């Protein structure tokens, strides 16, 4: 069995940042493995540990910088990795889930995995559509927002986390793309041994052309980026903790709390 995990690097903005040409100034961004993908990797690695002959391959769209994040996934137990990129992609809008899905679809067509695990969304742009777009493009079955997964006889039995504390229990025929919700498992930390081994694992760089993917121009463009005006009218208590705590205690007693 082969599991492909889509792994994204997310950009986190510092508390203070400048916006230049509709992007956050590079110096205020730090990059990290997308939180949802961390759970997707863990789920795949647990399936590989529980089963015989399960290969876990990661696929990532991004420039050379993202290899650090990819090595993290390898250190946590993925077997090998694919990085999809060419410099032209830097000018494309990855806001368009269909474009991102097309690139990943190239890897899925080439690898023909039984199962694709993807994070529900990326923590920075939060589009939340790439996994299902990918499934539609490669004609796989799918399930979005999965927080429990069991496999048997070519069927995935999943719990989909709906709003308001309700879960939907659904059977999904493989091959399928599942988007994984946080909390489905407890992602491991990479061990030192894992980190050392990750350096030796195979990491292939493929261009869209290598994967037979031709990207048309996206109809979506980001034309403005602003910091929303704060609607805050919070009354702040100021001073040392002893002072602010006293003021808050007074307020709470006025409201009949702890009186």
């Amino acid at each position: 069995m082969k599991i492909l995990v889509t792994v994204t690097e997310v950009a986190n903005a510092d508390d203070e940042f400048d916006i230049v040409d509709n992007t956050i100034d590079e110096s205020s961004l730090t990059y990290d493995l997308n939180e949802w993908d961390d759970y997707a990797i863990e789920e795949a690695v647990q399936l590989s540990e529980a089963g015989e002959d399960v290969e876990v391959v990661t696929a990532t769209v991004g420039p050379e910088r993202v290899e650090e994040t990819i090595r993290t996934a390898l250190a946590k137990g993925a077997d090998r990795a694919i990085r999809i990129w060419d410099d032209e992609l830097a000018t494309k809008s990855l806001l368009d889930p269909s474009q991102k899905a097309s690139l990943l679809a190239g890897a899925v067509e080439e690898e023909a995995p039984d199962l694709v695990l993807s994070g529900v969304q990326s923590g920075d742009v939060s589009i939340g559509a790439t996994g299902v777009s990918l499934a539609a493009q490669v004609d796989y079955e799918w399930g979005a927002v999965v927080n429990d997964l069991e496999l048997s006889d070519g069927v995935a039995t999943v719990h989909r986390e709906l709003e308001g504390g309700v879960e939907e229990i659904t059977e999904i025929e493989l091959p399928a793309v599942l988007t994984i919700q946080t909390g489905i498992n407890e992602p491991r930390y990479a061990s030192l041994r894992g980190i050392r081994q990750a350096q030796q694992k195979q990491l292939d760089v493929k261009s869209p052309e290598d994967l037979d993917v031709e990207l048309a121009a996206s109809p979506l463009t980001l034309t403005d980026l602003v910091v929303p005006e704060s609607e805050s009218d919070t009354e702040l208590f100021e001073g040392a903790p002893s002072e602010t705590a006293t003021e808050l205690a007074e307020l709470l007693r006025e409201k009949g709390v702890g009186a």
Partner: protein
Amino acid sequence: MSDVLAVAEHRRGELRDVSFELLTAGRRLAEVNGGDLHVAVINGAVEEFADALNRDGVDAIHTVSQGEEFNHNIYTQVVTQLAAEIDPQYLLAGNTVNGLDYVPAVAERLGYPLVTDAVGIDDSDGLSVTRELYAGKTEGTVSVESENAVLTIRPGEWPAQDGVGDAAIEPFDPAIDDETVRSTVKGYEEVGAGDVDISDADVLVSVGRGIEEEENLELIQDLADALGATVSASRPIVDNGWLPQDRQVGQSGKSVSPDVYIAIGISGAVQHVAGMKGAETIIAINDDPSAPIYDIADYGIVDDLFDVVPALIEQFSG
């Protein structure tokens, strides 16, 4: 060609609020170009749903009976076929767990661009959609250069449409290809039915990521004890397994509306706020002054919770 098709959402016999918000967003969008607003309601008690959805500004309601509940294979096929028949300029749905389970597939099949989680839509000079980017720290405008588009709207951003409409209610009979129905919904489960119901509490002391370590939760419990309050939490605390699911406040957890809600080390992501904005008084303790929790907090202390909370406990002990 300037029509709008909005797809209603329901679950276990009830239309969800976003369905009525879609009518507002859809009417406004149809208005700009003098188009009609079509609404689709698929599965369940479609006639009853159609009557409820027949509000001001709705021109046609298409009912489809292919089962009781949501199934993404059915929804994908039905909406794709309806779109082919009506040929709407824009297709609208809710940015919900089920919305995101079929809408991207419909967009792929129709070959229309998709913009999710819209908080604003403007079609006065070409279509542009406002959505949050960088975890809510910024708001971006996405210009859509396409004749058609598929949009999902964030729940709670548009008012619910009211009034009574005179829409034509028409059954639509899709051709479902059973071969493509490769998923089966087996049932539902209520999660986190524990012995504590946080939605009943008058005072909630709610804890988030800022607490850093599981053992620090004791501090929060001590404060709750001192105040006679109940402990609740934001998602990361429950994801980490530090508190059971029945303590989770937010979109995927419980909606609460206590008299007093004290948010400690909670940034106030939109999913969390959705579950607690109904609280009468919101107090935030968070050392990041730009945290979105301060957009809705009535009172706040911008300081280290590990200094403030012990001082507060002291105020109520002895």
